[in-house]
């Protein structure tokens, strides 16, 4: 053997290990899972937003062919508790009961009231029609401000209020006195429309009981098998050690599968009651009603600044639509955003207030970005308004306020300590790639010649907090769990490696990236590494995947565990080579004695020695394994600059994205191809909020955009070519220097696009267009601005 220069795995655009299987149909989705005697569930759901259940009789369903059983919430109530909320954000938060099957009242269209168990899906779906329910309609609660008014109809009458909580944050100087000395005050109201997450794979759950031992195996389309296991054991009383949760191949989540769903609890309860395996798979339109939604806020934002455009203070008032119930982390989502409104800017005062409001709509919860896109949108839109107000270029107003690169680490007004960043570098690179000055010149030229198709340029200089989360910070935020992550590494006797991770990938490519990380530390080939995940038996410890945490917290845990393996291997190698540990070099998987390169042992040889344990140092335990539980010391803070050019047809109101440039700083990059994919997908979802997607309800509380024909998810045909680039400022708070990339594109792109639309129309007198900026809304904005200007002219 000769020493070879080993090319590091980290930084290579490796094809994903996952993909050959996924794209050739050898995947293992929950809906593909079948066991002997499997029964199928179908849920009867409320057709109304709010009603009292006067009478509910499931017995006629039992007469239908193929039906085995049918249950109401009461039938299952013994052993089926309220669904959990893990984030009581204030001491006095109002926490209503959330029965997995509604008992007396339904509180949103799609709220389930009964379940049918049948031999096949068809029989189960048909039998739903036989169930008899009498509903006494109650008034829907839809408008967030009206819901808080005196005498408003209540979503939960027993609670006496629709106000779930009020969560304040005041830091720095007193905002009101800062406002007094400001030259300019910009006050705006922005509406965050509700979004429907639309993971490609719909939700599904299957439960197989083993009656003799009281054990249950649950397969679920979940992002959080570990948390789900704990929570379901609490909800159903199935002891935690008797419940195994498996997240097999999971086809996307975007936060929508970061949940403990009623269907999961009911499936477990029914499997226990009947002693038979059961499965449920949602249809897309069922998912639109029953899978949690995202966003849904009214944001009042106020900036106080000098006439030079320097920020003095920021005040934010939020009304956040909780929907009908508080689910796993519903109340905490806007609170995550609370820390991000000050973004990358320096200021003297910050005042934040969030009121959570119950409505008779599908509950909201985490959706890609979770609180941070909302915050970034409001501050980045408002910064453009400030620029217009003081007559500065939007990029210049940001420059005057952002944290300069030499000021890191920097503690923001919201109390976060940003460890690293270089906003100047990312912005300069983005401006050059975009051709900013040329586009501004073209914009002026087209404006002068009165082109009906107007050019608009939008910028967003975002940051976000990723790597959820230091456990003590979570304690301070009243979150009920920690934010650590687990990894263990097993060197097998033949030199192969198993990495066990507590993260639960559902499209992120952890198997590939974790292999790259372990390969570099261990000096073992990429191909010789397998990554086990998403099964509480195979990977018993973990806090799962959400909030761009997996690489930062879980990847770092893999790195640390691998270092521990090398540490132990070094002791064994020193023993075998009869050398001192200090005299050993470790490179490319080979231990060698400095100065006598022929004295060497590969890490694979060491692994075999520890397996036989015939000749290891006295007192050393057999095998070459290590575990690391990583509780992060800080969040990570990716940042970047996104620039968007749009052409707005003022005749039709249609917006076309002409070019899009982003320069993201996500720290050190493990796999550039995976990072690129995350950025592209994130951009698509953020642009979708800006231009296309909206969950629309009618006055009775019915979801009007209830199918994909009405809820417009854009496809590649609707999106421009993205120009993506990076700066790389390593994070100082973890051994890999990584920051996370799962949500950056979504967070940054929405304000960049809307800023561009408004920029195109500002000379016409338009200062805002509500999201999504549909052609009709743009057309209306142009029309009313023109009408306003005519009025002014004639006055």
């Amino acid at each position, binding site marked *: 053997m000769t020493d070879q220069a080993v090319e590091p795995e980290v930084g290579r655009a490796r094809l994903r290990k996952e993909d050959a299987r996924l794209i050739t149909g050898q995947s293992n989705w929950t809906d593909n899972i079948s066991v002997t005697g499997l029964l199928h569930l179908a849920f009867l759901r409320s057709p109304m937003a709010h009603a009292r259940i006067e009478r509910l009789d499931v017995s006629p369903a039992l007469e239908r062919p193929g039906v085995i059983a049918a249950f109401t919430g009461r039938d299952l109530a013994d052993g089926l508790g309220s669904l959990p909320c893990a984030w009581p954000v204030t001491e006095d938060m109002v926490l209503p009961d959330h029965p997995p099957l509604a008992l007396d009242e339904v509180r949103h269209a799609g709220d389930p009231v009964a379940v049918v168990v049948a031999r096949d*899906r*068809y029989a189960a*779906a*048909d039998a739903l029609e036989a169930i008899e329910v009498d509903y006494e309609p109650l008034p829907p609660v839809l408008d967030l401000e009206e819901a808080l008014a005196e005498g408003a109809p209540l979503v939960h009458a027993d609670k006496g209020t629709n106000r779930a909580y009020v969560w304040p944050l005041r830091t720095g100087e007193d905002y009101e006195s800062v406002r007094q000395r400001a030259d300019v005050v910009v006050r705006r109201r922005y509406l965050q429309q509700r979004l429907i997450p639309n993971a490609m794979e719909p939700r599904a759950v299957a439960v197989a009981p083993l009656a003799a031992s009281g054990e249950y195996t649950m397969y679920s389309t979940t992002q959080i098998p570990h948390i789900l296991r704990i929570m379901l054991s609490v909800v159903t009383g199935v002891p935690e050690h008797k419940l195994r949760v498996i997240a097999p191949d999971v086809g996307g989540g975007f936060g929508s599968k970061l949940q403990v769903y009623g269907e999961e609890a009911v499936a477990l309860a029914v499997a226990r009651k009947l002693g038979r395996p059961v499965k449920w798979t949602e*249809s*897309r*339109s*069922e998912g639109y009603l029953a899978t949690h939604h995202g966003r849904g806020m009214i944001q009042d934002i106020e900036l106080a600044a000098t006439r030079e455009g320097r920020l003095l203070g920021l005040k934010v008032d939020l009304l956040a639509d909780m929907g009908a119930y508080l689910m796993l982390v519903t109340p905490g989502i806007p609170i995550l955003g609370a820390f991000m409104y000050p973004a990358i800017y320096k200021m003297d005062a910050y005042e934040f207030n969030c009121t959570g409001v119950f409505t008779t709509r599908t509950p909201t919860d985490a959706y890609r970005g979770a609180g941070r896109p909302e915050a970034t949108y409001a501050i980045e839109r408002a910064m453009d308004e400030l620029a217009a107000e003081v007559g500065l270029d939007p990029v210049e107003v940001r420059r005057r306020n952002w944290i300069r690169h030499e000021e890191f680490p920097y503690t923001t007004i919201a109390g976060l300590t940003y460890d690293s960043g270089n906003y100047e570098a990312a912005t300069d690179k983005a401006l050059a790639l975009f051709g900013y000055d040329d586009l501004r010149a073209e914009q002026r030229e087209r404006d002068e010649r009165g082109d009906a198709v107007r050019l608009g340029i939008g910028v967003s200089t975002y940051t976000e907090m990723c790597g959820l989360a230091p456990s003590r910070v979570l304690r301070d935020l009243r979150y009920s769990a920690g934010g650590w992550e687990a990894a263990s590494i097993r060197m097998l006797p033949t030199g192969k490696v198993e990495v066990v991770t507590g993260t639960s990938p559902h499209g992120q490519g952890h198997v590939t990236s974790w292999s790259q990380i372990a390969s570099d530390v261990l000096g073992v080939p990429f191909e010789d590494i397998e990554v086990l995940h998403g099964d509480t038996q195979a990977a018993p410890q973990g806090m799962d995947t959400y909030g761009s945490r997996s690489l930062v917290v879980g990847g770092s845990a893999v790195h640390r565990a691998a270092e521990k393996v090398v540490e132990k291997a070094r002791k064994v190698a020193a023993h075998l080579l009869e050398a001192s540990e200090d005299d050993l070099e470790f490179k490319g998987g080979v231990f060698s004695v400095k100065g006598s390169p022929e004295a060497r042992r590969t890490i694979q040889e060491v692994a075999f020695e520890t397996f036989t344990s015939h000749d290891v140092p006295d007192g050393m335990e057999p095998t070459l394994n290590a575990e690391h539980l990583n509780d992060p010391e800080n969040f990570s803070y990716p940042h970047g600059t996104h620039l968007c050019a749009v052409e707005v047809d003022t*005749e*039709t109101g*249609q917006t076309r994205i002409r070019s899009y440039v982003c320069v993201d700083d996500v720290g050190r990059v493990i796999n550039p191809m995976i990072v690129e994919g995350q950025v592209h997908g994130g951009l698509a979802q953020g642009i979708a909020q800006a231009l*296309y997607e909206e969950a*629309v309800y009618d006055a009775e509380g019915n979801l*009007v*955009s209830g*199918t994909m*024909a*009405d809820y*417009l*998810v*854009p*496809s590649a*045909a*609707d999106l421009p070519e993205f120009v993506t680039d990076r700066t790389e400022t390593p994070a100082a708070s973890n051994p890999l220097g990584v920051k996370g990339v799962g949500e950056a594109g979504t967070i940054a792109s929405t304000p960049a696009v809307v800023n561009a639309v408004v920029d195109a129309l500002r000379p016409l007198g338009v200062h805002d267009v509500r999201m999504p900026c*549909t*052609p*009709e809304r743009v*057309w*209306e904005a142009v029309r009313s601005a023109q009408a306003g200007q005519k009025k002014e002219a004639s006055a």
Partner: protein
Amino acid sequence: MIPPAFDYARPTSVDEAVRTLADAGEEAKVLAGGQSLLPLLRLRLAFPELVVDVGRIPELRGVREDGDMLAIGALTTHHDVVHDPLVRRHAGLLAQATETVADPAVRHRGTLGGSLAHADPAGDLPAVVLALDAELVAVGPGGRRTIPARDFFADYLQTALAPDELLVEVRVPKREGWGFRYEKFHRVAQSWAMVGVAALVRRDDGHLAEARIGLTNMGATPLRASASEEALAGAGDAEAVARAAQEAAEGTRPSRDASASPEYRAHLARVLTKRAVLAAAGMG
């Protein structure tokens, strides 16, 4: 997304299909490419007792010339219509509009006849056959009859076809030397037209001699923009076209839905008519 139970028949000839429909009375639905019927079944918006699948009747497929007409089998898929040389030569408007229907997967399954018989006013092809002055051939127990396109679309999702009649052919007059353009306005690539305008124009000595304009999604049925058509006769420049296009929404009754108000649809009809006619006339 699970359809209610239904019986299924798969006739192999037009006669057998018509007999099957006649026996079933009002409770049968014809299945062609399935791109409209299957979603209706799966959403449980339609509850037929019998689905008559005409997909295995070969005589219903294909395009042929018949004097100064093109005869297009009702079961010809959108994909085949788009790529058929006869259609491209003699009915370019139909090919162009068909290319905007949904996405490639749908165009490979969906059929011209199915799309017309479904008569969704947001569908692209009803307005196109109206503008083309096509004829629709139906076969029933009483034999064969020809229905002009202007008499075919009765109301929202309703046609002049009797329950026991099968649409077998679409006959399109060849239009040599006419300019054409289908302007479709939609928010995402695969979505329905918010409004569509199908324009056919004949130029004579630098002026528009004749214009035929079909409107998609401007009422319960596809419509002709008759007022604009009249005003366009003799138009010689872009300004005259723009003026005539202002009448495009006359007599229409566009609906209100989550994507647009009637007022905005009327505005779009005017803008799109202007653009379609200018493009069709080569004046754009």
